[in-house]
């Protein structure tokens, strides 16, 4: 009977209900049904007001009914029976549960609160949804805020990224620009130099004599054309390049804009990575493209002129030396190659013949100096005093080095140097016996670059030349930079080949001398062609492809790449070349050389009539 002893499994509500029904005092208000398998609320009003508060701590009949429903009690319908009133009265509420029976406490445990039935969702949605909706609303608001924040940061990142990309592109453009400008400057300088060299050529009477003849050769024709073109339009070319550059940016900027627009969508979607990678790939594409263009633009003529602007060493390789070599150097060699025959020094291996202005009032010193210079494969112009030297420079004469006596009539060397320095930076070496420290200081103060003490020796003169004309020395073949311009190899080939010539020549001296005919004219007549060929490779090199250049070279034994051209080399290297009989025909194999040789023979007196009977 006691509820306390009941199984705890039974619900409080059911037990309270059962206990309430056991109270006989409520029989008028609520009681077991007549059959004992249901209970009936007879007096709804009284039950709610008096009984419910006592047992269920509330006075809400609706709630009581809801609870009954939760435990799967069902209201017994009274109108099931037609026209018949409920046996308990019209206002009575009869509830039924299969397990809820009078005198059957044991079955109370079977009465469980049932899971919310689908058909009762309507009731559930009345209670829970409000909270859930609130929660969901909060979540939605929070998410919206998060999205906003993400959007904002994404926007910021996008802008930053765009800025970075633009900066990158701009930087790229700047680099491109600089490259091109550098190239333009190089070209311009080259052309200016070439022009100056042509002008200075007029200082050499013999050069003028040769000019027409040399123009007849195919090589020099090409050169002349190139020379004309290059100086004529360096600035125009620069402008053109700039325009091309602008076109570049126009071509590329749509891509950039595309990139930027492609970036917009990610802000609204989760596709941030997609566009991002697309962007980067776009940039890469741009840079690749630009690189290609860069190469094209930077080396548009590299393949032709053998000058890679990226290599400063190529500066001396610029085409302009050609005419000088042909007209001046070659002619001089043709004349004085013999004198170099017995040289105790190796050929200086100039890229081209250095042009030296020898300013010396003393004829003996001038002749000897010039003779030495010739033996170093230099092209010499002379001035008898400082005044003449200044005027030669002022008239546009271009030299690689000026050797300046100090004490001279009319205008001394220091004053001449001072004047020349107002408009020209050609290295000037003082030649003087006045080499006290204060003297030397004064020389330097007035723009001299060095001092060659008098009396100079052949060695000291050569050392001075090599010191100041180091940039005109040929590169050792090993140092040949990997060339964009295919002509480089040939340029570097020459040093060794020329070198070998020199070696051969000096080697020739001994055996020749041993025959006791060291001064025999015929002995050395054959050397002249050699000297000529020394000049020749330059021509072909500048004009033609590697192969041609190599072909024109009679000897490349020391050159690594020479193996390729070995078959093309005319004549065996070494002593065999020495004989005049060998030289002539060999040279004649080369049409170009033949013509130039003709030039050489046509060339007559050298500028300084040294060595000639006076």
């Amino acid at each position, binding site marked *: 009977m006691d509820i306390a002893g009941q199984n705890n499994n039974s619900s409080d509500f059911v037990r309270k209900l059962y206990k309430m029904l056991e109270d006989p005092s409520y029989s008028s208000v609520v009681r077991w049904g007549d059959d004992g398998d249901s209970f009936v609320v007879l007096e709804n009003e009284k039950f709610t007001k008096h009984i419910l508060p006592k047992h269920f701590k509330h006075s809400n009949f609706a709630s009581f009914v809801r609870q009954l429903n939760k435990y799967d009690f069902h209201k017994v319908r009274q109108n099931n029976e037609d026209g018949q009133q409920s046996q308990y009265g019209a206002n009575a509420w009869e509830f039924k549960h299969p397990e809820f029976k009078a005198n059957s406490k044991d079955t109370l445990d079977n009465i469980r609160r049932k899971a919310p039935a689908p058909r009762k969702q309507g009731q559930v949605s009345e209670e829970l949804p409000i909270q859930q909706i609130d929660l969901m609303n909060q979540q939605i608001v929070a998410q919206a805020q998060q999205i906003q924040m993400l959007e904002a940061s994404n926007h910021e990142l996008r802008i930053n990224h765009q800025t970075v990309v633009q900066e990158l592109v701009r930087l790229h453009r700047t680099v491109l620009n600089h490259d091109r400008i550098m190239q333009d400057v190089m070209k311009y300088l080259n052309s200016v130099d070439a022009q100056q060299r042509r002008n200075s050529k007029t200082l050499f009477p013999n050069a003028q004599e040769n000019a027409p003849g040399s123009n007849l050769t195919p090589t020099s024709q090409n050169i002349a054309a190139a020379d004309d073109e290059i100086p004529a339009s360096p600035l125009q070319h620069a402008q053109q390049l700039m325009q091309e550059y602008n076109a570049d940016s126009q071509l590329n900027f749509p891509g950039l804009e595309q990139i930027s627009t492609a970036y917009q969508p990610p802000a609204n979607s989760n596709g941030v990575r997609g566009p991002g990678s697309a962007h980067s790939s776009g940039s890469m594409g741009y840079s690749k493209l630009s690189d290609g263009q860069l190469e094209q633009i930077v080396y548009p003529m590299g393949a032709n002129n053998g000058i890679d602007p990226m290599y400063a060493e190529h500066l001396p390789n610029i085409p302009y030396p050609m005419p000088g070599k042909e007209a001046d150097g070659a002619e001089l060699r043709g004349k004085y*190659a*013999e*004198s*170099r*025959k*017995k*040289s*105790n020094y190796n050929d200086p291996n100039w890229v081209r013949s250095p042009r030296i202005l020898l300013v010396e*009032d*003393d*004829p*003996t*010193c001038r*002749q*000897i*100096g010039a*003779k*030495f210079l010739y*033996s170093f494969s230099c092209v010499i112009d002379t001035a008898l005093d400082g005044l003449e030297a200044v005027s030669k420079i002022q008239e546009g004469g271009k030299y690689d080095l000026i050797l300046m*006596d100090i*004490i001279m*009539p009319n205008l001394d060397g220091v004053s001449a140097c001072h004047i020349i320095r107002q408009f020209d930076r050609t290295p000037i070496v003082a030649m003087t*016996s006045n080499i006290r420290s204060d003297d030397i200081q004064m020389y330097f103060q007035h723009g001299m670059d060095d001092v060659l003490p*008098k*009396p*100079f*020796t*052949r060695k000291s003169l050569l050392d001075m030349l090599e010191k100041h004309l180091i940039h005109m020395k040929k590169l050792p073949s090993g140092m040949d930079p990997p060339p964009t311009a295919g002509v480089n190899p040939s340029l570097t080939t020459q040093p060794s080949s020329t070198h070998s010539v020199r070696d051969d020549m000096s080697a020739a*001296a*001994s055996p020749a*001398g*041993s*025959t*006791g005919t*060291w*001064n025999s*004219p015929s*002995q*050395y*007549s054959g*050397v002249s062609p050699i000297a000529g060929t020394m000049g020749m490779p330059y021509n072909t090199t500048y004009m033609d492809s590697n192969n041609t250049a190599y072909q024109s070279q009679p000897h490349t034994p020391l050159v690594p790449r020479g193996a390729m051209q070995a078959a093309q080399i005319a004549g065996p290297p070494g002593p065999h070349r020495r004989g005049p009989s060998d030289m002539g025909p060999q040279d004649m194999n080369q049409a170009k050389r033949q013509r130039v040789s003709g030039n050489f023979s046509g060339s007559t007196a050298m500028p300084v009539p*040294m*060595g*000639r*009977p*006076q």
Partner: protein
Amino acid sequence: MSLYIAHANEASHQEFDFGDNVDVGTFEQILDMDEGEEDDGHEFSRSIVFGFLEQAETTFVKMERALKENDLRQLSELGHYLKGSSATLGFTKVKDQCEKIQHWGARKDETGSNPETDDKKNLKLINESLKKVRENVEEVNNLMVKYYKQLEGEE
């Protein structure tokens, strides 16, 4: 103390005693430049040497005139002028005298490092030096004539 030139011709090994008039090493450089001359193996050096000797004679004449005019400055310039070429050829004695003349003409002592304002003294020293240098040049001239004759005889 005589110096010898072993001529560049290794075969002949000709030796020639220039005495202390010529610095062999310097002069040999000039001779080296003769190699391969077409008509005459020594034409270059010969022309240089005898060109210088003529030049020296001309300069001496100018010096004599300048001496008469007490033109120290001119004397200094002429001395310098001849000094350079003689030094380049290795004509040591000539060069030394010319250098002194240059210094005296510049109103300095014979080393050129100290001033010498006594013009009469300078002129006198120059006059003496001029005589010496003329003798030197004459000597060199004789040597050179002999030397080149010897070379020609060989050929």
